[in-house]
């Protein structure tokens, strides 16, 4: 497959996705704040999903610990903002911390690759969660921290519209960077490693470096998403970023489609919408049939299994 044509083919749906988000934004400006709030979350999840798509879809590796990387971004952002940093100045540091986390999480498995990355990132995320619980002087442990609102200079993103605008801009920037990266030497190296490691190394690609790079970039995207997520939720605590979030992001990428960047947007829409649909259905069930939390988990599990069985390539489409 030629790189140029796949690039063009996948950019079109990616752009369409951004346009849909912008359209929703415009529509929501006259409509409910609820919709705009959802747009902010979809865009933030999509940024985190992009990180997974790069690691899983572009480079063929596995990460089971994206939640931990989001936690790093969220906590760095929160702690810096609480110390009086302007949010926009803290954002690059959150990004860098996420990238450093991605590097550290992938370090032990970089020679082995594949499933071993899954193991090392999983262990890393569990360690991060425990550190956040125990390092009470900075993180206040399980009690959590309240996050200041995001703002630039005089303006602050208190309304849902402002939050949606910031998220969509960040998503567009992230998509553009990923799209450029994908077409660059680095991105082509990732795809070569994904398709055939031996052939890639025979062509002079440093396989280990390529794998490390993808985890660093994926970590940076997670850091950014984590920082924004912290601002929109307004509160961070360690259990928000547990194993559940890591798997939600993987499922997001899988539902959207890991081989196209636009998959992140479709997947984010699904992962934000599905729990709400499930709770809508639950509200119409007769009371006392099932315990609410259990029903939600069960229904989400069924959706995951059905989607993976019947559409393993995701919404955004096939690899070739």
């Amino acid at each position, binding site marked *: 497959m030629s790189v140029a044509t796949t690039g063009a083919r996948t950019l079109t749906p990616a752009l369409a996705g951004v346009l849909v988000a912008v359209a929703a934004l415009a529509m929501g400006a006259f409509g409910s704040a609820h919709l705009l709030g959802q747009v902010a979350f979809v865009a933030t999840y999509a940024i985190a999903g992009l990180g997974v798509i790069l690691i*899983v879809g572009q480079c*063929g590796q*596995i990460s089971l610990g994206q939640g931990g990387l989001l936690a790093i971004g969220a906590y760095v952002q929160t702690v810096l903002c609480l110390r009086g940093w302007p949010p926009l100045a803290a954002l690059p540091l959150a990004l860098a911390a996420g990238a450093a986390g991605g590097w550290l999480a992938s*370090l*032990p*498995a970089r*020679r*082995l690759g*594949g*499933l*071993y990355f*899954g*193991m*090392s990132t*999983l*262990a*890393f995320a*569990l*360690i991060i969660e*425990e*550190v956040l*619980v*125990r390092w009470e002087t900075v993180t206040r442990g399980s009690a959590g921290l309240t996050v200041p609102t995001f703002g630039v200079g005089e303006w602050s993103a208190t309304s849902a519209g402002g939050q949606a605008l910031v998220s969509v801009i960040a998503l567009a920037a992230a998509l553009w960077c990923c799209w450029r990266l994908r077409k660059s030497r680095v991105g082509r190296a990732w795809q070569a490693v994904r398709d055939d490691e031996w052939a890639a190394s025979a062509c002079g690609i440093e396989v280990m470096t390529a794998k490390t790079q993808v985890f660093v970039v994926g970590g940076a995207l997670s850091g950014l998403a984590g920082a924004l997520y912290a601002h929109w939720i307004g509160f961070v605590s360690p259990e928000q970023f547990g*194993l559940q979030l890591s*798997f939600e992001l*993987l*499922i997001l990428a*899988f539902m959207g489609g890991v081989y196209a960047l636009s998959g992140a947007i479709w997947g984010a829409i699904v992962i934000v919408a599905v729990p709400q649909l499930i709770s809508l259905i639950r509200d119409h069930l007769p009371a006392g049939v*099932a*315990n609410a*939390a*259990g*029903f*939600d*988990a*069960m*229904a*989400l*599990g*069924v959706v*995951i*299994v059905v989607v*993976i*069985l019947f559409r*393993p390539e995701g919404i955004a489409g096939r690899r070739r």
Partner: protein
Amino acid sequence: MAFIQVLISGIAVGCIYGLVALSFVLIYKATETISFMQGELLMLGAFTALALNAGAGWPIGWAALAAVALMTLLGATLERGVLRRAIGQPHLTALLLTFGLGMILRGAVTAVPAASQTLHRLPLPFSEQPLVLGALVIATEHVAVIVATLLLAGLLTLFFQYTRTGLALRACSEDARIAALMGISVPAMHTLAWALGAGLAACAGLLLAPVTFVQVNMGLIALKAFPAAVLGGMTSLPGALLAGVFLGVAEAVAGLVLPEGVKDVVPYLLLMVALLLFPGGLASGLRRLRS
């Protein structure tokens, strides 16, 4: 004396880690799938025994046996019905499928109000009097866990060494294509591996029941099985069991000498260090150091 007591409780907990890791490696070797539902199978096994005992009034021994048998059946059914379809897909597909199935199982148990709202105790016949050896006081359930693990390991060894089916399963883990050429039904072996894996997880659940309580979150212990499997080298059954015991002891000792909270991350730190220094597992690492 206190140290020896901590050591024994560490070994007992480690045995449970080891059993879960064993079930996990068994499935991984035969089907190349990382199962993220071993914890849920463990929890469901304990709840099934509880339901049969407390709900249906069966004697505890029969309830436990029936629970293990039912879980074995469930493992086989899930393989036939769902997981088989993921063969030939990337690793992650099967992994996410097991996670989804685990969510369904956990959700199903949580949805039952009687199961999720209280802690339950499984009335196993050994939890009254601690064992006293001189100055040493050992909890009976710890001894029971260690003895039961040894027994299960012995049974598994007999199965793998002396039965045709065991040999076939080993051949299938070694090289599925060549095993197929030798006339072994590889799909049947996949079903068997999942059935055994689920049965082992249920055994671990029954053994864990007296140590913790029977509750929805008891499956979280399965997360410790991943470090154990990696330390054991991912593909070695005795390695997984030994690494589980090693982790249990390491955790117990860390709880004794290191500040609070460090204990819980010790297995994961060990996992990362092991991947960094001994990527082939502890056994091969030791071999390499010696040569």
